[in-house]
């Protein structure tokens, strides 16, 4: 379970987060939805302990995120970012193995785990010996996901994981991720600006705007009982124009 209570974070004059509370129950997927500058990536970085909150409290499975617990917290979290953040000097296999190697796993165990993950995320094994520069965007995100899963952490944090992909690959991966999160029983916090993606993934959604929570609930709650006109405006902005809907 991930809990943020009244969290605030300021960068100079810019209030990135202002009194934000979010709860993600174990084994569920929660989506942070918002435009750029809404504070959603900052929130993930606070959960990871990459920076400290100015006020409020962040806990992961009951453990408060502090300088002292950072290592333990990070051990419980798999992290995926938009461009994948794969290491260009390492082969796919070595990228995936890196977290296990950092913790001193024996080589045989690492090999077995990498093979298993390739099956789970449907990644062709010959590609394991390629370098990131030799993979497509979709393949890179699969590798990034494998690396996030290699230690089998209970929590996954994904920051616009499909944001850099073409529409077809994105839709294909969306379906696979939803299935995987369910089968693997992960606690997932996913950041996106894409309303469709929020709809596909989100059991629950937090809509952020300028560092504040505008509304929390299911997609239905947001669509039918918008807390402010802004919610409707945000959802509608990404809906296909009515004239286009006729074609589907």
């Amino acid at each position: 379970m991930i809990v943020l209570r009244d969290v605030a974070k300021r960068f100079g004059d810019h209030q990135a987060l202002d009194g934000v509370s979010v709860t993600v129950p174990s084994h569920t997927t929660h989506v942070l939805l918002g435009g750029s500058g809404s504070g959603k990536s900052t929130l993930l970085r606070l959960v990871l302990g990459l920076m400290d909150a100015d006020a409020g409290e962040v806990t992961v499975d009951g453990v408060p995120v502090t300088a002292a617990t950072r290592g333990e917290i990070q051990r419980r979290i798999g992290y995926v970012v938009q461009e994948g953040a794969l290491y260009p000097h390492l082969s796919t296999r070595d990228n995936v193995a890196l977290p296990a190697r950092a913790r001193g796993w024996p080589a045989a165990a690492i090999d077995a785990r990498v093979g298993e993950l390739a099956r789970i995320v449907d990644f062709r094994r010959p590609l394991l010996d390629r370098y990131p520069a030799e993979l497509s965007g979709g393949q890179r995100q699969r590798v990034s996901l494998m690396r996030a899963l290699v230690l089998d952490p209970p929590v996954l944090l994904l920051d616009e994981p499909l944001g850099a992909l073409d529409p077809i690959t994105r839709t294909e991966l969306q379906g696979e991720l939803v299935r995987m999160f369910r089968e693997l029983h992960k606690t997932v916090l996913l950041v996106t600006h894409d309303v469709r993606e929020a709809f596909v993934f989100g059991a629950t959604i937090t809509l952020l705007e300028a560092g504040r929570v505008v509304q929390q609930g299911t997609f239905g709650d947001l669509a039918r009982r918008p807390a402010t006109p802004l919610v409707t405006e945000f959802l509608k902005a990404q809906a296909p124009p009515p004239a286009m809907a006729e074609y589907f």
Partner: protein
Amino acid sequence: MRRVRLVVVLAAGLLLVAAAAAAQGPVVRVGSKSFTESYILAELIAQVVEQAGEARVERKFGLGGTGIVYTALAGGELDVYPEYTGTIARAILKDAGVTTLAAIRARMAERGLAVGEPLGFDNAYALAVSRRTAARLGLRALSDLRGHRELTAAFDPGFLDRDDGWPGLRRHYGLDFRDVRIMEHALAYRALASGRVDVITAFTTDGQLAREAVTVLADDRQFFPDYAAVLLARRALVERLPRTWAALERRLAGRLDNATMAHLNAEVDLDGRSFAAVAASFLGAAGGARAGGGERRAALLHELPALTLQHLVLVGVSLAVAVALGVPLGILAARRRRLGQVELMGVGVLQTIPALALLSFMIPLFGIGPVPALVALCLYALLPIVRNTYAGLVSLDPQLVDMAAVIGLDGWKRLGWVELPLASVTILAGIKTAAVLTVGTATLAAFIGGGGYGTLIVTGLALNDATTILAGAVPAALMALVVHALFEALDRLAVPRGLRIRARPPR
């Protein structure tokens, strides 16, 4: 434990080397400055010492100026070199009032140094005119120039502003010329011969004076200080090797008058003979066979392999040490940003010190020879290495750095597995820059006796001989190209394959 054993082995090795050196008996280290006359005199000293048979000779020629060569003698790095009484008084004792040889001897004795008997010639400033002009105007001495305002003079740059140069001379004799211009010494004789100028500065032992239709005007009212050539030696040499010292005094003192010295200078400067051959024929050892211009060039070619090796060692060792120091310093600077700024400023300041000045600062600390040159070259090579290591590390993609933390890579693992490989292209570029720079800068090592290709460049500058300069400069340039190519090849080995692949369309 293993480290202790290594130290013991190294110490034993050093002792062996020292013992081997000691077994070869006493050594006399002969120095010279970097102009023709000093080279010839030093070669004369070296050959006399060798013939005396008491000691081996080490030649440390072409040192860059009085400051360097005197500091080396005073510091025990040299045993003897040729000097001039005027220079001892003005540049070493810094007291123009010390004029007599006895007074100079007394003052130098306080410093543990001995001054030999004068060699017989005086290398002083003088003014010279063409023989034609002298005849036409009846010029014999400097006072004859008074009233000849119509003459054009060309003086070398040093002469124009030294107090014992033109300003003093002009007052002393009441001289005035219509046109006084600055001209390099080497060009002045040609300008005089072509009639473009009428009066030039000369040194009283210039080789040209022995060959050309030039008249030196006598210093009839004793303006110019005495620049009598003498041997300047450590007292220890005189006491330890009395037979050698006696041989030097017997065979050189009083044997070289102005005309003889000018003649020897001419043989090197104008005939292209080598210092060693000119010295040998003077001493009567080589039977006086004159070999002409090819002799010095042949000698140069003969030296080239040894100089190449010396140059490679200078570059290789200083670069290796600079990498061993610079990469960790760059890492430290990237980790501790505030300390890093101080550090980068420090290595930046090192870079702004002119190379020759940096080299001369090393002499009081490390003496002369390859060691101070290595230290100076290493300091010079630091900047590009430290700066590029720092720049490579601080400009890494922040997402990749964050990811390393999240993945659980800490401290050394993060550095070794992720950060250094990612920064490797930038770091190697810095090392490459340092290597190519060092090949060039190492040519200056010759000024403090460090050897290498610079030896030829320094000699060539002294002789005003382009061939000799090129014999050093061209191989140095070639070495820079080879080093560059080697590093290009090293890039393939040291930069991870994944960083060398360009993104290509996936299949």
